[in-house]
């Protein structure tokens, strides 16, 4: 534990991509910058020269204050947005558009309101194996039976009752909905699971029970997870690796950069388990979140 | 559409304001005030000149009454007349019978202004003749003099038996010209001037029948509510005298070709003087009170009106409740009655035309 505090910037992020890694790279983010034109001449920079390599099986938490661009980064991994400069690859190939390489659990609207829980879960496997006309084939019926059985299994695993399977999303509580949303993403067996503030709208008790559930699920199958949050305690509990994005507090016209990139203990840190150490770490991280440690770029663009 | 909206609104308005009207009418009863409604038509446009030239005011002042003249859409003017919002109104003999008279509003025609002498016409493409009309689609404003003209044309051409085979398409007069010209699949249209002239500009279309072949059947009248005419204070009679005097002074100027009279009468319908003169050619004006009163007291009018009332009855224009053509009866200046004595609804009164003739106004 002490080692974490003493070497907060232990991983030189630029070097990571070139070093040979024990597990294959799941997500590769290379020198990504994002900026939008505002008005005729000016551009607003959101992200600036971000490079992150995420190994398979890592649980990466992207932490940062509101507006720091962490969700933008997630959307670029998804393929929903594209970097102005740089390159993003998932499972070794470049991201062009949204596809099923990544699973996705957003904060809201994570389920299709017009489908029951079971239909929501079955939708992914069904669409990926049978297109609309293919469903006329007799084999589809057996396939659907299998998928439904698997979906019920998954539901049980997520702590839902069999009777919930026929319900529509609006009949479930927010926590239940997010459980179903995680199950729905897991049904696709995607290599990478992207979660955008997935628990931020929930009340504290539900939130911590979902955090426990997510950790359990992750430790069982070890998918690669990229979890975006602005809550430091959540980040410390969930992740195996913490990446803090922040804008330099000295020069706020610049985009956000990686302010901190650190490994976390696999057991999950919490105030109850780690006491004062946890609090110190939170303090420490929040300094980075404010961008206190970031320097301004030198005139030639190099980051000192 | 515009016309129908207006008439519908006016109907609703008249329903709602019914009581209100009665109250305001009583409010300034010092000088008896009368309102005449008229609508755009060659034979009625002179009312516009009559008002603008001051002729009307002169005659009204002579009888110490006030007369207002108000332009309406034709349908709206009839609605207003039936709703008793106006005291007198220009209309054809057919509408006089099937609108106010059939609706129980006892009406008196005091001026027979003119008859259509070619203003209404049946126009065809491809040289169609009457025997070819059955089965063809015929565009016209149904239940008006257009349909009457069509039936009379069929009858006079020996096609009476084919009448039920006509395929009529009720077409609003505001759209009938483009609708006919742009649909060569519809070979027949029945309408009136100036629409007739607009359609005949297309040389492939020609007229096979017009109202000059049924002279004096389509009459253009000034109709007064009988109860107004019979007001106990005599103001109704004064009104009838004043408007008759003004009318014949106006018409005489028009017949004499007085430029101002022509100009204003043409402007009343937004026509050019030339176009208006062309319309007048097919309008048989009773330019003198003598001609009008002779027609009103002669035998021809009864015969013509009988054709019209039979048509109205056969087409249900006298209303759902009317079970006999005699239930809407007509009297003539000689006192004779067409129909049941106790159900006289339309009266032809030559008193004022004769007074004008004798110079007693």
């Amino acid at each position, binding site marked *: 534990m002490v080692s974490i505090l003493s070497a907060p910037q232990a991983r030189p992020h630029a070097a990571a991509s070139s070093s040979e890694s024990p597990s294959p790279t799941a997500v590769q983010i290379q020198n990504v910058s994002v900026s939008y034109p505002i008005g005729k001449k000016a551009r607003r920079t959101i992200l600036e020269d971000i490079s992150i390599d995420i190994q398979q099986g890592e649980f990466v938490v992207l932490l940062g204050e509101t507006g720091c661009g962490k969700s933008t980064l997630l959307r670029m991994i998804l393929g929903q947005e594209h970097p102005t400069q740089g390159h993003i690859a998932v499972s070794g190939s470049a991201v062009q558009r949204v596809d*099923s390489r990544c699973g996705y659990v957003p904060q809201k609207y994570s389920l299709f309101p017009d489908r029951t829980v079971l239909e929501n879960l079955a939708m992914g496997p069904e669409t990926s194996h049978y297109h609309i006309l293919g469903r006329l084939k007799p084999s589809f019926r057996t396939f659907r039976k299998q998928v439904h059985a698997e979906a019920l299994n998954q539901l049980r695993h997520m702590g839902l009752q069999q009777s919930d399977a026929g319900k529509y999303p609006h009949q479930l509580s927010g926590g239940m909905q997010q459980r179903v949303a995680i199950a729905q993403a897991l049904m696709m067996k995607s290599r990478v699971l992207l979660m955008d503030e997935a628990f931020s709208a929930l009340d504290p008790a539900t939130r911590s029970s979902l955090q426990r559930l997510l950790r359990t699920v992750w430790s069982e199958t070890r998918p690669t997870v990229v979890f975006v949050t602005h809550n430091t305690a959540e980040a410390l509990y969930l992740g195996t690796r913490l990446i803090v994005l922040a804008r330099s507090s000295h020069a706020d016209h610049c985009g956000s950069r990686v302010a901190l990139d650190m490994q976390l203990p696999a057991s999950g840190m919490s105030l109850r388990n780690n006491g004062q150490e946890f609090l110190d770490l939170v303090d420490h991280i929040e300094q980075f979140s404010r961008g206190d440690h970031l320097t301004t770029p030198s005139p030639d663009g190099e980051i000192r | 559409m515009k016309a129908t909206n207006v008439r519908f609104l006016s109907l609703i308005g008249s329903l709602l304001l019914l009581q209100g009207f009665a109250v305001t009418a009583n409010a300034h009863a010092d000088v008896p005030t009368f309102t005449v409604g008229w609508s755009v038509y060659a034979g009625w446009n002179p009312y516009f000149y009559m008002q603008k030239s001051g002729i009307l005011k002169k005659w009204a002042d002579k009888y110490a009454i006030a007369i207002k003249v108000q332009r309406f859409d034709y349908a709206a003017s009839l609605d207003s007349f039936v709703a008793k919002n106006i005291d007198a109104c220009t209309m054809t003999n057919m509408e006089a019978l099937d609108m106010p008279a059939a609706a129980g509003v006892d009406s008196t025609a005091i001026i027979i202004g003119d008859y259509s002498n070619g203003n209404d016409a049946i126009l065809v493409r491809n040289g169609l003749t009457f025997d070819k009309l059955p089965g063809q689609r015929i565009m016209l404003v149904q239940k008006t003099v257009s349909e009457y003209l069509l039936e009379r044309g069929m009858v006079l051409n020996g096609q009476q038996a084919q009448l039920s085979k006509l395929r009529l398409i009720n077409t609003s007069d505001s759209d009938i010209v483009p609708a006919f010209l742009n649909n060569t699949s519809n070979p027949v249209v029945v309408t009136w001037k100036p629409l007739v002239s607009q359609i005949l500009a297309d040389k492939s279309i020609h007229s096979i029948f017009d109202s000059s072949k049924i002279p004096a059947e389509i009459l253009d009248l000034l109709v007064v509510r009988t109860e107004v005419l019979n007001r106990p204070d005599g103001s109704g009679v004064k009104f009838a005298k004043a408007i008759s005097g003004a009318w014949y002074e106006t018409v005489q100027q028009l017949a004499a070709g007085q430029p101002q009279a022509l100009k204003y009468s043409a402007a009343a319908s937004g026509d050019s003087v030339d176009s208006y003169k062309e319309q007048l050619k097919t309008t048989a004006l009773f330019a003198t009170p003598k001609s009008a009163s002779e027609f009103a007291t002669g035998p021809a009018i009864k015969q013509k009106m009988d054709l019209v009332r039979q048509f109205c009855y056969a087409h249900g224009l006298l209303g759902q409740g009317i079970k006999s053509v005699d239930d809407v009866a007509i009297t003539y200046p000689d006192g004779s009655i067409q129909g049941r004595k106790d159900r006289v609804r339309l009266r032809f009164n030559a008193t004022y035309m004769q007074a004008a003739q004798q110079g007693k106004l």
Partner: protein
Amino acid sequence: MANFSPFDIQARPNRLLSQSLSVLLFVICIGLYMQTSISRHRENSEDRVVPNARQLAAGIHASVFEPAEEDDYIPADNASRWERLHHSMIWKDTVSSGRRFFISLLLLIPAILLALHIGLFPWFGAGFLRFVLFFDKIVALSLLPILFIVFGIDEWSKIALIVIGVAPTIILDVSQMVRAVPQEQIVKAFTLDANNFDVAYRVVFRQVMPQVINSLRLNLKPMMLFLFAGEMIAASDGLAYRIAIMRRHMGMDVILPYVLWVAFLLFLIDLSLRVLNRRMHPWFQS
């Protein structure tokens, strides 16, 4: 009446009171009508502008059990009521107006699908949206002469008038609904291996369907207005045709039942769409 408080937002009128308040205006309307009718009939027993109950009953009977004046059909003396109804004026007019109405409704389906594409597919949006925005502001009635040239004066010009009249509004409305579908849903569907067709028709369209039906419900009255306009301009049958003809001789005894019948039909269509919506989309929260 102890606490008379019409301007109190927090007032709680009891059930009986609110029920009677809700019928009050109906009673006033009927009362005013009757009063007007009675006073007009006192003056003129044959008044047609405000027909009395007897005239109305005769008018209803004529519309429901007697053939239209232009028809050759003469019912046999022993014809059943059904037989008479089947050949009646109101039946004939309802069928022909109804056919125009439902064909237009069917033709709105492609418009709705186009709207889906405009809202969802950037290429369609770029190509169509501005044009539809512009076209929406065109007063369809003023295009009538053009419609006559293109569609003739028969059925198709009336149907075209309805479709051109309401389709742009519906397209704009539906494409707004499509745009309002959260981006998360579309992204999520793509992560579940859905293709463009799946996303458009099996995710977005299914979700906006109840709103689309509600939009149609709101447009029923404009549709009827355009149908009436068309039938009043040129027609040989239909509900508005009959009203136009009856007005020529002030047949309010037939017009009033027709107006109420049209109102009832519209109410019925609206109700059935509402019930259909509730049945088909139990998940929908308005």
